[in-house]
């Protein structure tokens, strides 16, 4: 396999093991470019890539922007803090406008689940989902898997624990889909109000005690806790969350010596993660950022360079 089936990356649900492997392998080649003096290759010269962000984002938007620039694409940033509905223009109309401007790839972040799919049905450009509501955030999961593969040599057979608000997390959902496809064992842990038990049916192990969940975990991926969830009554207090599900000094004895600690950022230090964990040698949180650029470059290459194979097989 040398190319992806779909010209879009809307989520990891339905993406095959071969496709994920291809993306990760390509990302490996892209990462080499970081070591060069001239951190730029001409691959996407003449292509127009649009960052369409309906939700505030610094890290993800910057990562996509740098990835595009390193591949010499024309990058355009459109940010709107309000949703399309509030703005009065429909998403489809915005998409058509970008299409008329010659967009080849549109990266979209939006608060509505399924919005990227909606856009993909109405424009010719490739759509990359940079987070659609609580649905998926496939590039985050891909960069997490790239980091795991880089550090651990493989993904298959590893036990990966995801900690925190599983229910509202697009990062968790994409990671779970991708990791299961790649043959990892997936565990989740968090307050019972924030874990959809339905995940068990997909083969995910559900824990409610962090200490138990950490036993034998090769990778721990810590999700950011949204403070608004507490206000909505999903758990009693930040203090209580930190006591039971925060990655703090208390859980150090339960960590494997070679555990890999991930966090998609930005971190709420003192809530879901304490500095003692974030600064631990086994945490690779900054490296995830570099890997994020490499992974997104890989995706750009694979989507934009599909050449004549534009018939969407999906």
């Amino acid at each position, binding site marked *: 396999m040398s190319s992806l089936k779909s010209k879009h990356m809307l989520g990891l649900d339905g993406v095959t093991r071969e496709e994920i492997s291809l993306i990760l392998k390509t990302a490996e080649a892209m990462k080499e470019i970081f070591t060069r003096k001239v951190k730029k290759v001409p691959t996407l010269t003449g292509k127009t890539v649009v960052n369409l962000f309906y939700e505030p984002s610094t890290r993800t938007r910057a990562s996509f922007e740098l990835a595009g620039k390193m591949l010499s694409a024309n990058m355009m940033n459109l940010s709107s803090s309000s949703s*399309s509905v509030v703005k009065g223009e429909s998403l489809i109309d915005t998409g058509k406008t970008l299409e008329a401007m010659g967009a080849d790839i549109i990266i979209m972040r939006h608060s509505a*689940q399924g*919005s990227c*799919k909606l856009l993909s049905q109405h424009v010719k450009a490739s759509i990359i989902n940079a987070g*659609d509501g609580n*649905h998926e955030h496939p590039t985050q999961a891909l960069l997490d898997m790239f980091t795991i593969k880089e550090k651990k040599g493989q993904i298959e057979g590893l036990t990966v624990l995801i900690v925190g608000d599983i229910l509202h997390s697009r990062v968790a959902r994409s990671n779970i889909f991708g990791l299961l496809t790649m043959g990892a064992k997936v565990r989740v842990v968090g307050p019972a109000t924030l874990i959809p038990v339905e995940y068990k049916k997909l083969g995910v192990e559900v824990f409610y005690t962090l200490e138990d969940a950490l036993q034998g975990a090769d990778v721990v991926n810590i999700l950011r806790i949204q403070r608004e969830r507490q206000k909505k009554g999903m758990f009693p207090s930040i203090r209580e969350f930190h006591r039971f599900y925060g990655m703090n000094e208390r859980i150090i004895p339960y960590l494997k010596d070679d555990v890999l600690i991930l966090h998609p950022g930005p971190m709420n230090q003192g809530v879901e993660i304490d500095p003692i964990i974030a600064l631990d040698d086994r945490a690779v949180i900054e490296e995830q950022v570099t890997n994020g650029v490499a992974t997104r470059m890989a995706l750009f290459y694979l989507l934009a360079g599909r050449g004549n194979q534009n018939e969407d097989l999906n």
Partner: protein
Amino acid sequence: MKILIKNGIVVEPIKKLTDKMDILIEENKITRMAEEIEITEDMQVVDASEKHIFPGLVDIHVHLREPGYEHKETIYSGTRAAAKGGFTSICCMPNTDPVADNSSVIRFIQHRAADEGVVKVFPIGAISKKLEGQEISEIGMLAEAGVVALSDDGNTVMNSGVMRRAMEYATPWNLPFISHCEDQNLVDNGMVNEGYASLMTGLPVYPKAAEETIIARDIALAELTGAKLHIAHLTTKGGVELVRQAKAKGLPVTAEVTPHHLALSEEDVLSFDTSYKVNPPLRSKEDVTALIEGLQDGTIDIIATDHAPHAYEEKMVEFIYAPFGIAGIETALPVIYTYLVKDGKLSLLEMVEKMSSKPAEILGLPVSKLSEGENADLIIVDLDRELEVEIKDLVSKGKNNPFIGQRLTGWPVMTMVNGKVVYQRSGFNASN
């Protein structure tokens, strides 16, 4: 001019009849039904060979949207969609603007229906003023104006005390209460079944318990007050069980199910196609099986469409911003025939019963059977006709129909209300 419908197979659920018969119609009445009626010169003959004749279908759960939301549907367009779907009598829900919570709005709808409608329209009045669930509406005056039931459909009267008072107060008029069962605190902003659909899409959850708690509450209130209770659009296995138990206790409880909850399931939502966004949401396969069983054993009395049209642009948005609703009145009969009757899950007679005589009976509608001396409300159906549902063929203003693109079998070819042909399929000519 007399009309003679010749050689059709008459399906009459009240008389439990499935026989080949000729039907003679004079003015607005059926004047003769016999195995063979001789043609005379003053008759216009309709050849119904190889076709079935049903009593006109009755849909007690329709949103006509007028007044207030004429961009979604009007009485003009909605009654024509009903006629095309084989319905000759429909009941419209009160969630209009202004809300049908007073006799003036009811009279407006009745006049509008008389002027522009092609099928019989029976309005349903609101339980509470403005559907706010706080103060009970003028139920007596609504009854005088001719409402056939009370409902806050689209909303649940969340305050149990208000619901109880409404049920009690309505006693002298003996109006059935149609309950849209949705615990708003449990649903919050939920929109898809809690389970596989919410897991795969990340969309906010609409748990089954939100429906079942209110069903249980309203059954208890019906028992307390003696009110007739009709549960709208049942979707869960647990809900079917609650109705079954209530019936076993002899309570005056009836229930309906929609064609889409029988034919579709939560997995369809994974497409993020907004035409699958409906309240209550599409449930699991297990629930669908329980609904079919409930229909078979009589726990679920009837099929109603919950025809909920929306403007095209309202549904062409992100799933979470799209309004709830499926506009399915034109495809209801072929959906039920294709998914249930062809599969042997329901007999032809049962289907017709659950879509005509039974719903009329529940709301006490003045609806006729296929019999001499009765009003001529009937339809001719081609059960062999298979058609792909195409958006261009839909006459409802609402194109939010998830069956678009599907091939369905069993389509009405002619609809007659009071002896007058209000719909006929092009190519099928009543006047030859």
